[in-house]
């Protein structure tokens, strides 16, 4: 097939081969992914703005386990580890894994390599919701939960629902393009309202910025518990659909030929990815770039099949964000750097290197 004189790299495979013949997740890469996540987590727990010795960390981590628990760790250091550092590492892993998995899922559903978790207006919706809460109900909470993340969640969900409803009504365009255009329009509209409110409410402008730049600064176990159920459900649903995403990457007909509605697959995966994204954005703010670079790096290094891309994006996305957050809290210690700055600063050059060294055939 020729498009603008360029030959497309991979001719589409017949459907049956697609579902049976493509490589499964190579175990070497599965091990590498788990090792990367574990390594990042260990580093993240060991390193921080406050120096805590290796022995102390090991003792403090083992302390809650019976029989090992004869701990003589200074309570303030133990509290720094257990109340601040470890939940932050866990939350970083959840956020990074979720964003990368959702990115891979969106790219599969929309057959668009630039799709990311913030497509369909999820980020714009979350930002608008959070800004409204900061501006008009500062400091309020609902059943003990800070209103800002809840408003962010509602905003993201509304934006995506709106984009989906709008996209469906565009019959003249191909389904995916209609959706993406609707998402872009909704995002622009929400951004306009958000900027207007921000201008009118200059008192709260810094809070809005710190929200938009992303934050794991105030992370604790309550944040982990808040996002965990959404991330678990969302990731499980996306993982279960990885084979259908492979079929969808060839065309809707391939899915239909299996007796399954392509539209339904698309809807289920989009809802799952958006639910997870909204929960994560609600706690951590908008952290750019993870949803794009991680899935593409996996594609370039390992392969295009979603049976490979989805699980590896989960593992490497988690590892990447834990590392990025470790940098965010140590590079300028005892000051914090915005995590979005780190993800783009490390992520962009790394991605360029990967792209150049693999000659980008897989894109």
């Amino acid at each position: 097939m020729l498009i603008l004189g360029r030959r497309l790299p991979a001719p589409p495979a017949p459907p049956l081969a697609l579902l049976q013949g493509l490589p499964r997740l190579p175990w070497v890469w599965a091990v590498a992914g788990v090792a990367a996540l574990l390594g990042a987590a260990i580093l993240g727990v060991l390193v921080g703005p406050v120096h805590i010795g290796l022995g102390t960390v090991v003792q403090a981590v083992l302390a809650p386990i019976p029989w090992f628990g004869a701990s003589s760790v200074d309570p303030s250091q133990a509290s720094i580890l257990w109340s601040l550092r470890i939940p932050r590492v866990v939350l970083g892993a959840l956020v990074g894994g979720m964003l990368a998995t959702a990115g891979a899922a969106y790219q599969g559903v929309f057959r668009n390599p630039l799709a990311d978790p913030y497509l369909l207006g999820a980020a714009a919706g979350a930002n608008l919701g959070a800004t409204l809460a900061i501006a008009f109900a500062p400091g309020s909470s609902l059943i003990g939960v800070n209103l800002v993340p809840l408003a962010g969640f509602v905003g993201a969900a509304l934006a995506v629902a709106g984009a989906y409803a709008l996209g469906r009504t565009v019959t003249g365009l191909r389904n995916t393009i209609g959706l993406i255009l609707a998402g872009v329009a909704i995002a622009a509209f929400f951004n306009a309202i958000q900027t207007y409110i921000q201008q009118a409410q200059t008192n709260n402008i810094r809070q809005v910025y710190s929200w938009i730049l992303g934050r794991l600064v105030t992370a604790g176990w309550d944040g982990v518990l808040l996002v965990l159920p959404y991330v678990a459900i969302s990731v499980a649903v996306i993982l279960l659909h990885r084979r259908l995403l492979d079929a969808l990457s060839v065309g809707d007909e391939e899915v239909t030929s299996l007796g399954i509605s392509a539209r339904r697959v698309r809807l289920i995966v989009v809802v799952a990815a958006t639910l997870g994204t909204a929960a994560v954005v609600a706690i951590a703010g908008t952290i750019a770039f993870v949803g794009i670079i991680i899935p593409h790096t996996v594609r370039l290094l390992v392969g295009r099949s979603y049976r490979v891309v989805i699980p590896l994006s989960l593992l490497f996305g988690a590892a990447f964000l834990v590392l990025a957050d470790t940098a965010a809290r140590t590079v300028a210690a005892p000051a914090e750097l915005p995590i979005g700055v780190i993800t783009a600063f490390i992520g962009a050059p790394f991605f360029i290197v990967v792209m150049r060294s693999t000659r980008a055939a897989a894109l």
Partner: protein
Amino acid sequence: MREHHMRWAVIAATTIALTACAATSSNTPSSPAAAHFPVTITEASGAGVTITQQPHRIVSLSPTATEMLFAIDAGSQVVAVDDQSNYPPSAPLTKLSGFTPSIEAIAAYAPDLVVAADDTGGLVHGIGALHIPVLIEPAAKNLDDSYREIGQLGAATGRVPEASALEKKMRSDLAAIVASIPKPARQLKVYHELDDTYYSATSATFIGQVYALLGLKNIADGATAAAPDYPQLSAEYIVASSPDLIVLADTKCCHQGLSTVAARPGWSSIAAVKSGQVIGVDDDIASRWGPRVVDFLRTIAPHVKQLEVRAA
């Protein structure tokens, strides 16, 4: 309100360094205010602003300048203040913005002097084109900057004796507060909080350096290498530093108080939380560099005294 933190942060971020304030230069004042004009005031940036006649239609776009103008009895010469100038209550509050100033809206008040904290949105250029003098009184770095700005506003409004009286009063009030605190047995540590994501202010800022007057050590100074003015501190560092005193300048914006601070993960081990020395202050007073800094220190001083009596 938060605007000045933000402004300062923006200024720091864009690395527009505030040059040290230059001394006011003007004609030596003579007793009838009108005879004092024309007067030329050298701004902090080094620019000279000439005011030909005593102004009677001042527009202030800076909440701190508004407080200073009213404190030197120039309030009757002020016709409009910006939407953040909420003190004193008698100030003629308008919807004018000091952030995104509208030249037309300001000009509609037919001012004969405009005072602002920053030249944002082409303010000086736009107002200057109308041949109206604009006086920029930027965020002070220390008390001397504040006194200098009060002096400049006195010269600009024909209130020189009132301005020097205010400075004298502030100096003696502050001296009395400082004198009321016994010599510390050990240096106490303070954490000044700007918002609930742990932004703080170092001693390179006005509010960050007033703690030195009370003999306190500001823990934000540990982060000056990364962010000289307003660093975002990591929670680990704050907990490990275990400040003796926590000053919350986010009571209005973020509704913080002893109970919300104590509920933060890991914060219960901090000395100030254990002893209950978590002081909520008015966000506005803590973010301005005007005469109410005396009120701010008056709020803090008794807590420092308590701590030091206990420590001794």
